[in-house]
């Protein structure tokens, strides 16, 4: 029964949705301080390659690879973020897009290490490692009626789900704190934020770097879930895809990024039946979206409205009227 429900293909799509959610959060975090960065694909690539190389060549556990990858992406975030302070809006978008392309070309040309456009294969797979871990502990998938590959994909999905929930929790909490208020203030009016005592240099680099770390982190997960990466995975089209997650879902709230990533990952899969037209429909949806709801599906107002509706149901008596 359970064995039939758990189709490895669906489980894998589930994992991609979660990785895409993390990527969408990376662009959302940078946007929350008013910076539009299209460097996510580049940072994702840095994370993926760093983690893959570290685990392949030094035989380190995946978790070390992931941590090193996030740190390296973060360092690159600072290096790119500092000079980008002078830029804003489309100029920043173009500059970061350029950065992503530089990284891609770098992965292609540093053949001795990255194997060029052929890509890296044989990257340790999270699922396989977990499976071995469970086997060592004496738990065999067949004992709960699952085939090996079902069990592997299920483990990956559960692990990614926990990680994604933690990341969402982290940034929701950060948003409702002094740091989150500083980001929002900078986004709304940089000069006023500065006059209110907010060190805009620090907070802008902080949010840019956080975005880079999250993207690098997602990249390393991507590498260890696919076990194969090539420069084409981190090309300009990936950068645009990540941007679409945030813009489609709504970039004001974290819920928008989550929704956008989920919907935009599922859509091409759901449209698989009409294979050759699916990207046309994908494109049309985007065009209609920009025409009729440019702020994205989920907006701040919508969240506020839902909150109000929810809280007024719970206690009408102390609802304050303005």
């Amino acid at each position, binding site marked *: 029964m359970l064995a039939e429900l758990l189709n490895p293909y669906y489980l894998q799509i589930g994992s991609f949705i979660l990785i895409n959610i993390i990527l969408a959060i990376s662009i959302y975090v940078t946007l929350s301080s008013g910076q539009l960065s299209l460097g996510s694909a580049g940072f994702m690539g840095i994370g993926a390659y760093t983690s893959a190389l570290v685990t392949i060549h030094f035989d380190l556990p995946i978790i070390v690879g992931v941590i090193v990858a996030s740190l390296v992406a973060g360092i690159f975030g600072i290096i790119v973020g500092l000079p980008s302070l002078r830029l804003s809006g489309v100029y920043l978008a173009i500059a970061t897009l350029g950065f992503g392309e530089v990284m891609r070309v770098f992965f292609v040309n540093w053949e001795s290490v990255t194997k060029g456009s052929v890509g890296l294969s044989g990257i340790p797979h999270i699922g396989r490692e977990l499976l071995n871990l469970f086997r060592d502990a004496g738990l065999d998938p067949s004992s709960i009626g699952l085939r090996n590959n079902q069990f592997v994909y299920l483990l990956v999905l559960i692990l990614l789900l926990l990680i994604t929930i933690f990341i969402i929790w982290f940034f929701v*909490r950060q948003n409702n704190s002094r740091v989150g208020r500083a980001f929002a203030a900078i986004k709304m009016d940089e*000069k006023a934020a500065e006059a209110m*005592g907010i*060190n805009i240099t620090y907070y802008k680099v902080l949010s840019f770097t956080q975005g880079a770390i999250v993207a690098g982190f997602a990249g390393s997960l991507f590498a260890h879930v696919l076990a194969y990466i090539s420069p084409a995975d981190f090309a300009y089209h990936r950068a645009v895809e990540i941007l679409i997650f945030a813009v489609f879902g709504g970039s004001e709230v974290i819920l928008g990024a989550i929704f956008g990533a989920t919907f935009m990952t599922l859509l091409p899969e759901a449209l698989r039946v009409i294979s050759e037209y699916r990207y046309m429909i994908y494109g049309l949806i985007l065009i209609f979206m920009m025409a009729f709801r440019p702020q994205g599906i989920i907006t701040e107002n919508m969240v506020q409205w839902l909150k109000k509706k929810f809280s007024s149901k719970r206690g009408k008596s102390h609802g304050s009227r303005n």
Partner: protein
Amino acid sequence: MVLEIKNITKNFGGISALTDVSFQLKEGEIHGLIGPNGAGKTTMFNLITNMFPPTTGEIIFSNETITGIKPHKITDKGICRTFQNIRLFSQMTTLENVMVGAHSRSKAGVFSGVFRPKSQRTEERKIREKAIELLDLVGLSEFHDVVSENLSYGQQRRLEIARALASDPKLLLLDEPAAGMNETETASLFDLIKQVQVRGISVLIIEHDMPLVMKLCDHITVLNFGKKLAEGTPEEIQNNPAVIEAYLGSEEDDEIA
């Protein structure tokens, strides 16, 4: 002296916005900065908060030179301002706006903001209480959860004052706080600024509403074409022929008009 402006000159390209202006602000006084449009009043505010540096001259705050210090550090030292063209964080609620104002008086970073140890929760509660208290002070206690862009013009101006006060300033700079206000609103603004003074905060105010300035200020500095024209008590200013000329034109002009 809370604030000493010493021989400040500011040139934008070849145009001189301020030329050799000096004045002083005593502790606890309300000091008016008046003058016709384009006299350099807002430029003076921007120089005090170091939005840009002066060409020459020096600004001293509480016996410490503050020229060349970054704007956010100036707020840290105890100067906070409002803006002539309202610059609230328009999509934040009223309460959040004031809480942002308390930024320089709190210190929670990323990790304490996320994991919320007791120190962070205490700090957050204090910020919130202070914000609520300041909203009471400026008469916006019923509007905590209203998004600030939905407030009326006069309310937005008072919210800007509350936001500035949240940084516990020693010196408050008000840039035309009464602009666009009706008489009732101006009257309550007068009371508000007097209450700010009672709290021991010195005030430097740019204002075009002359009856308000004359009633409110202990001292007035008059600027005209980037130069200091006069300085003194409201009575002295009102009877100063140079000021009258700058504002009303000379008697010959009157006859023509």
